[in-house]
């Protein structure tokens, strides 16, 4: 047992409103620079859709991630042999056109154009060449475009659906979509790290953040290919690759990353997980059927004595272990079993988990009597005296899952390596919590029905209330449980404290200040 800690994330997809605030927060802090304009370390996609870069999930095109072979696993499109062979020209590397050419507008023309018969316009210009261009694509070009032939229907997750299933998904009355915010998953078995010929990428032992050392990167671009999530980007100006740094300067100081801090839907949770590093290779090489379960099992119980002992032996601070015990992500992933990894079949063991979306998938609008509910509304709320109800319950308890607007196969392709039962299990739990809370707040559901629902999925009323609390009411400190980084100890190890005694905050080190004469 070799216990390490990982700052992990959970995104609750039912709550994402697709506002892109997270993307903007990230862009403003980190990627508003020459060469990085096109990068969106945090991006929000519409599903079904082709995403950013286009069709990133299709590893037949991009050759990202790991694949199983006779000896376990190997990188699909990079690695020692393929990487060095393709070092002059990497045939699987996405190019700017797969993302989009960054652009701005010549705003000054609006002001400075000479008087004339026509209104002046601000022409779009490329941020690479500075020349006028036609905008053909943007970072969220398929935003909200479910059903469109160019985007939704080309979603790579569609490939296992039959023609009929695909058609059914895009009938006008049934059509739906949800948002999928993505950042780097800070994987346990990162393909990006493994693929870097220079050894510029590394995973930090203390918090699991995966970083690129900018001084060691030599632009061999293998990480761009190897990351199956396409979350390592090539900066065309500096000739270095860059990726999400999980706002490590903020995390170390005890703040949540900017995307999480600013998230309008409060969908994001950040917490510590303890995992067994000895098992990484074995788990990543599991067969398809057990992959997802093994992935979840590598996360260890933070209350287990043995786990704690091994963590301490590895130098993990007590406060980190404490944070792991109060981790909101541990609750979502392990205690409640609500969250699933995105595309576990890429075998990088991502540490960003998603609570699959239930509302767009299962809700329907019904003609029912909703006076009971409207009576409970506050006076200030606008009330429409009609009987339409955005309904998430049905007569038969789990009937809606069969009638879901999206085939479970589609969600399973995203979150569980094709195992529909796993997704259904999560959705049922979400549904059970909803039915339970409806009994409590609206009261139009009988105890028998609500209790049966909870019992069916193995929840109790208390657990359901906990889930409800952390989902809907959670305060900042409940959503983000980040341990201190213990920088002070790190500095003690890096430098002889005698060297810096008396200098802190003073600007120069002992002996380095020359006295003038």
């Amino acid at each position: 047992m070799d216990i390490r800690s990982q700052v992990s994330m959970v995104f609750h997809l039912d709550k994402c409103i697709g506002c892109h605030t997270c993307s903007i927060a990230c862009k403003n802090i980190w990627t508003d620079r020459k060469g990085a304009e096109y990068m969106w370390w945090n991006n929000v996609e519409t599903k079904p859709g082709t995403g950013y870069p286009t069709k990133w999930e299709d590893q037949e095109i991009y050759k990202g991630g790991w694949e199983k072979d006779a000896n376990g696993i190997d990188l699909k499109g990079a690695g020692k042999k393929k990487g060095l062979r393709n070092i002059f020209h990497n045939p699987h590397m996405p190019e700017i056109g797969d993302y989009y050419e960054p652009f701005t507008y010549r705003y000054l023309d609006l002001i400075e154009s000479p008087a004339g018969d026509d209104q002046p316009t601000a022409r779009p210009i490329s941020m690479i060449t500075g020349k006028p261009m036609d905008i053909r694509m943007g970072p969220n070009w398929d935003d909200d475009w479910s059903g469109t032939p160019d985007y939704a229907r080309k979603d790579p997750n569609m490939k296992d659906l039959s023609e009929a299933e695909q058609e059914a998904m895009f009938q006008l009355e049934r059509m739906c979509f949800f948002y999928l915010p993505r950042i780097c998953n800070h994987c346990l078995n990162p393909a990006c790290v493994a693929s870097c010929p220079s050894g510029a990428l590394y995973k930090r032992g203390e918090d699991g953040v995966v970083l690129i050392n900018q001084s060691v990167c030599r632009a061999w671009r293998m990480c761009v290919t190897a990351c199956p999530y396409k979350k390592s980007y090539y900066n065309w100006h500096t000739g270095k690759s860059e990726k999400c740094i999980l706002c490590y300067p903020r995390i170390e100081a005890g703040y949540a990353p900017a995307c999480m801090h600013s998230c309008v839907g409060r969908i994001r949770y950040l917490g510590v997980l303890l995992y067994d590093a000895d098992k990484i290779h074995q788990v990543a090489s599991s067969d398809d059927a057990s992959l997802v379960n093994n992935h979840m099992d590598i996360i260890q119980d933070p209350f287990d004595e043995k786990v704690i002992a091994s963590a301490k032996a590895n130098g993990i601070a007590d406060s980190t272990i404490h944070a792991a015990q109060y981790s909101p992500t541990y609750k979502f992933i392990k205690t409640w079993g609500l969250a699933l990894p995105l595309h576990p079949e890429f075998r990088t063991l991502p540490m960003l988990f998603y609570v699959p979306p239930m509302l767009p998938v299962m809700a329907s609008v019904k003609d029912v009597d909703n006076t009971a509910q409207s009576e409970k509304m506050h006076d200030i709320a606008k009330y429409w005296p009609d009987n339409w109800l955005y309904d998430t319950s049905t007569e038969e308890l789990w009937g809606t899952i069969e009638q879901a607007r999206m085939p479970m196969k589609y969600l399973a392709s995203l979150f569980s390596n094709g195992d529909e039962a796993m997704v259904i299990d999560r959705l049922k739990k979400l549904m059970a919590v909803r039915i339970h809370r409806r009994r409590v707040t609206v009261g139009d559901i009988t105890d028998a029905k609500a209790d049966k629902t909870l019992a069916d999925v193995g929840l109790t009323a208390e657990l359901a209330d906990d889930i409800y609390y952390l989902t809907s009411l959670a305060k900042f400190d409940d959503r983000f449980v980040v341990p201190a980084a213990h920088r002070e100890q790190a500095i003690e190890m890096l430098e002889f404290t005698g060297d810096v005694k008396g200098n802190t905050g003073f600007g120069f080190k002992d002996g380095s200040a020359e006295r003038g004469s």
Partner: protein
Amino acid sequence: MNTLNTFMFVAFPYVAMITFVIGTAIRYRQTGFKVSSLSSQFLEGKKLFWGVMPFHIGLLIVLGGHLLAFLVPAAILAWNGQPVRLIILEVTAVTFGMSILVGLVGLLHRRLTNERIKAVTTRMDIAIELLLLAQVVLGCWVALGFRWGSSWFAADLSPYLWSLFKLSPETAAVFALPVVIKLHIFGAFLILFMVPFTRLVHIFVAPLHYISRPYQQVMWNWNKDRIRDPKTPWSPTRPKNN
């Protein structure tokens, strides 16, 4: 004439080699961030393939050949003892020389015509590409016009180069060479001289250590074995990770 010759084949080679060694070291140590292959595949990939592949593969082989003739001239001469083997060697050399030429012309064309590539092109990039082009043209000319290069390189030039390293230049053979060959030799030193100031420095960070490295790399902020143990006395040495 002799002054010029002495400059070209005695003074300048030393200037070039010293600049090369010290300049590259300084560039690596002080501006390590700027040591990069500066790939532009991200902006344009197709044309790049047809330029970069023939260029690099040709270069590896031709440079390797020059290096061999310099290091083990006797072996090359022995190999060339039989005409068939000589022809094989020469034909290979010319073929790959041409491959460099074709690749380089393609790369230069791409660099000068593609708008996006122009945005990441510096004057130095163009200068070094033109210099390389001149050198390759001269090289092919030498190979085709002054037979058999592999033999006389081993016999005449290798001793000259060694003599430079021994700090007692023997220049008689070089001074007597035709001007095309002289330019080619001078060009080589000029390129050597330019290395620290150009993107050519990426040659020295060729990632060969990747072969022996484990795939995953984990780094700790502190030396995790030592920090937890209060009995270990302080030492001013830095832990290995940092």
